[in-house]
């Protein structure tokens, strides 16, 4: 039982890492980034390519993935999302345009990685990091799990507190409510958007590297799976709420875990969509979301 709770918490931390950046970007600068999964995968892929050449340890691999993720995200923002936002006639048209731009973008790295790996799984086995399992009171925990728990929950709570208490965090929340009035307040939206994308990309890279360590290998398509779950998590918790991401991640992870433990498992995909559908019917603003949040 303790083991199951620990495992489910680890899964929740993974979800937090992935969904955090996505929620931040959607809830503040209003970009529902369909390419987030691609950034996640491709950052890990770049780290994999480097590790194939030079056997590196975990910190270096994570650093490479984070820098890659940040650069890809910034490039996407600069080349695609920002121009779309600038041109959008109204926020509603812009929203869809951004989604489409993200869809197009996501196809590119996936295709490159597929070509290169022939869709075979890839991982960091060429690196120097070794997974170690420890047994404490009958509960098995690995060093990767410990890192994921600390990093995932730490970054989740840290980001949430930062958004809640810092000046820039306040500015981001304001952007999420009303970009135009935010601009009247002197908030430089394009600059802040670029910074947010950079952070979100770095988080995606971090998640990519840690997940590859945790699962031992991922494939070019791994990001898409998480993307759909992240939608559920973000809406579950409430768009724009970072604590909501943590809550949503836990709910989804524990719900999936319960389904897998107590049923024959085949309905597990339906859990995320079912939860998503249900929450939208009952409480569309999400569990922690505020009703007035403008971005719909």
């Amino acid at each position, binding site marked *: 039982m303790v083991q199951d709770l620990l495992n489910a918490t680890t899964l929740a931390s993974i979800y937090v890492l992935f969904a955090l950046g996505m929620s931040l970007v959607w809830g503040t600068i209003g970009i529902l980034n369909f390419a987030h999964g691609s950034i996640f995968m491709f950052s890990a892929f770049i780290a994999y390519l480097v590790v194939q050449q030079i056997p590196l340890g975990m910190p270096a691999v994570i650093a490479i993935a984070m820098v890659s993720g940040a650069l890809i995200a910034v490039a996407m923002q600069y080349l695609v999302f920002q121009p779309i936002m600038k041109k959008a006639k109204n926020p509603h048209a812009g929203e869809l345009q951004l989604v489409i731009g993200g869809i197009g973008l996501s196809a590119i790295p996936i295709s490159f990685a597929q070509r290169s790996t022939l869709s075979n799984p890839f991982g960091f086995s060429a690196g120097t990091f070794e997974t170690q399992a420890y047994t404490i009171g009958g509960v098995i925990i690995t060093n990767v799990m410990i890192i994921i728990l600390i990093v995932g929950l730490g970054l989740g709570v840290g980001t949430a507190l930062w958004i809640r208490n810092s*000046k820039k965090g*306040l*500015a981001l*929340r*304001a952007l999420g*409510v*009303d970009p*135009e*009035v*935010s*601009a*009247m*307040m*002197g*908030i*430089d*939206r394009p600059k802040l958007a670029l910074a947010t994308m950079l952070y979100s990309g770095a988080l995606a890279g971090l998640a990519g590297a840690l997940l590859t360590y945790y699962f031992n290998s991922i494939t070019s398509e791994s990001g898409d799976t998480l993307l759909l779950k992240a939608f559920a998590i973000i809406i579950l918790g409430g768009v724009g709420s970072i604590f909501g991401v943590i809550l949503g991640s836990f709910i989804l992870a524990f719900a999936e875990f319960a389904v897998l433990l107590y049923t024959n498992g085949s309905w597990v995909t339906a859990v995320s969509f079912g939860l998503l559908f249900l929450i939208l019917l009952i409480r569309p603003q999400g569990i922690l979301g*505020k*009703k*007035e*949040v*403008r971005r719909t």
Partner: protein
Amino acid sequence: MLEVTDLVVRYGPVQAVSDMRLTATPGQITLVLGANGAGKTTTLRTICGLQRAVSGSVTLNGQNILGLSPSRIVRLGVAMVPEGRRVFAPLTVEDNLRLGGYTASRQDNDRTMAEVYEMFPILHERRSGVSGLLSGGEQQMLAFGRALMSQAETILMDEPSMGLAPAIVDSVLESARGIADSGKAVLMVEQNAEAGLEIANDVVVVSRGEVVYQGSAEGARKNPELVRAFLGDAALTDD
């Protein structure tokens, strides 16, 4: 001092503002009157950088600000109280004020926030409450306070009385007068000509994007027929 000269703004092929001329002077309220669609809001939006102009100039104390980004313009000292107040509804009153002071220093913020609370005690009372739950009048006060927080010397107000109960309109416009009296230059767009003229120093009447009358508010008050003629004319296009 804010000066707008020969401003032309278009939405695609539609000319929204043509040859607009305005001035806003410290300590004074310049009232812009005109029917719906006359180009008033567009003018304000252009001044604070939200809308691009085709030609003309907007200067602040002689320095050109036309074409700068909104955030740059706030820093130079022009703040906006937008139409419909548009407070950040899910955020607290205090967070709204802090956002108003986004470009200002911490000391300025602390000082101005105290002043705002003094001016609008109700805001202090509800400072940790969600601003979306304030009444219309309270939200308007918050929008004023938010603009003041930026330390801007010029404040643009877009229809501050819109949607408010008649009883509150007077007190809101009184506050606007108070802001001007504290030395700010106020450029106010109003539909409620009568109430607006009570507090304004100068008045500009626009119709179909053009200035059709310009003069002192006092003069207009003394000769209401004059203004009504223009407003009536402009109002006709509404149908």
